[in-house]
């Protein structure tokens, strides 16, 4: 298996009135073919910002000051005024933003969105072609074909999220960046969505996923590797099991220890929240597991 994505030295800054906020500070990540990389961290750690820079959708006030993205050997400059070819968005890298399932137009049927997405990349595609492709994809992944004719409100939250996930990958992108795709779902729907993502990788519809979430138990289930972000930097990165069972960086340790699971020991003990940790400890050097 070769390297799918190699993002190097990314620096993303929000230019706001008064001050510049550095959200992503010189971060490099590599994703192997077939890998799910989990990006974890608290609110404000820069995980969504990093995800959207890699998905090539950085827009003001967010500015990419430097960084390069290499996919399948093709190198794309991201910093400054670099122009990203239109064909990359959606077809090479696709983004599933947070709350995507609630941004589907409530007055249009799902098939309208499908046609819209396909047409914006291939102006010659006919309606039938676009729908056939979507129908085939939807049935392969175990959803009923009738979702195409449904209005968003006729679908449950879990179904809606699976539908937008499928639509975001209609163009067979190499990499999918999914931002908090499971956070608004209940546990059963979460599980079904995760299974679908893994099946998409299995069927080679997509070749890699960046899964951004603050939900560590979900990451343990879906991710091959986990990278933990804190204040714009990756502080620790390694295989999921290792990250969960024996985290090395003080911040990762603090994060893992504040997870509550329905296991017998949790009803007996008292866990101290992160405020009881000394924040200065978190400035420890980053740990990258091989």
């Amino acid at each position: 298996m070769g390297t799918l994505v190699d993002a190097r030295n990314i620096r993303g800054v929000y230019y706001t009135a008064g001050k510049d906020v550095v959200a992503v500070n010189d971060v490099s990540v590599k994703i192997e073919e077939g890998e799910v990389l989990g990006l974890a961290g608290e609110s404000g750690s820069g995980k969504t910002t990093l995800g959207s820079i890699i998905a090539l959708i950085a827009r003001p006030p967010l500015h990419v000051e430097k960084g390069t993205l290499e996919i399948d050997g093709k190198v794309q400059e991201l910093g400054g005024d670099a122009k990203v070819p239109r064909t990359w968005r959606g077809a090479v890298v696709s983004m599933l933003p947070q709350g995507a399932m609630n941004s589907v137009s409530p007055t249009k049927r799902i098939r309208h969105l499908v046609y819209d997405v396909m047409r914006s990349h291939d102006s010659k595609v006919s309606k039938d072609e676009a729908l056939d492709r979507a129908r085939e994809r939807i049935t392969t992944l175990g959803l009923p074909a009738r979702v195409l004719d449904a209005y968003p409100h006729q679908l449950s939250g879990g179904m809606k999220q699976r539908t937008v996930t499928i639509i975001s990958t209609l163009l067979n992108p190499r990499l999918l960046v999914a931002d908090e795709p499971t956070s608004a779902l209940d546990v059963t729907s979460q599980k079904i969505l995760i299974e679908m993502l893994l099946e998409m990788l299995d069927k080679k519809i997509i070749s890699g996923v960046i899964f951004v979430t603050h939900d560590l138990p979900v990451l343990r289930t879906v991710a091959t590797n986990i990278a933990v972000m804190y204040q714009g930097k990756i502080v620790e990165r390694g295989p999921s099991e290792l990250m969960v069972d024996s985290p090395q960086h003080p911040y990762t340790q603090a994060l893992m220890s504040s997870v509550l699971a329905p296991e017998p020991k949790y009803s007996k003990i008292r866990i101290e929240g992160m405020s009881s940790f000394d924040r200065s400890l978190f400035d420890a050097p980053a740990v990258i597991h091989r």
Partner: protein
Amino acid sequence: MSAIYTAEHISKTFGHGKSQVQAVKDVSFALEEGQITTIVGESGSGKSTIARMVLGLMPITSGKLVYQGNDVTNLKGRARTEYWRDVQAVFQDPFSSFNQFFTVGALLSRSMRLVGRKVGQERLEESLGYVGMDLSVLDRYPHQLSGGQRQRVMIARALMMRPKLLVADEATSMLDASLRVNILNVLTDLRNELGMTILFITHDIGQACYLADRVLVMEHGLMVEQGPTDKVIFNPEHEYTRRLLADVPKLHAALELDDLHEIVEPS
């Protein structure tokens, strides 16, 4: 131990005719004094509807609510205001429950007026102490506080009235895991130190397990199981509770994934 609050066969129906939805169907439960009771369930199971009925924010369709021996099913006017002195609430979203033009001090001084200025000042310091904040927070505006701090201010606001029953509806759902534990610890301290009765509503079984003395499980408006935490979570009897537990992603063990096509989705 005695029950401070009982709900007897309560139901709630929304809408009329064809579009009628029964959100809560014939549910009975009791809240023991000085205990934390948690209602768990998926989205749409009716758990928040129960919270709103207990708070008297929503008329109930049928059934009876009893607080300290008094019928509080249909309170109005002054009686309801009196009831709210004893029963207070903390809601889900700490970002929309503030007036952004008011400082925290201005917000809390409104509660102060209800109890009298002298007593109010004492209670103010005391309440902020319970949630681990100092008086400097009074000059801050909501946008200067983190989500966890805002939620602690909201708990402090509820505590100003020295409520006997605190209803927390998904009070920690919008917070990061690291801040969540702090809020749950505050609630545990309130129970241990003040003997407060707490009704905590959540979709997260992990939190229920950490916090609760008793757990009630809701599914589609029905209460399918209730009992002590150890029994319901570690030895569940009902099929639904078992499924819910099996689907919770665990931190230290891989989730068992079944074949995708075996899962039947209600349409």
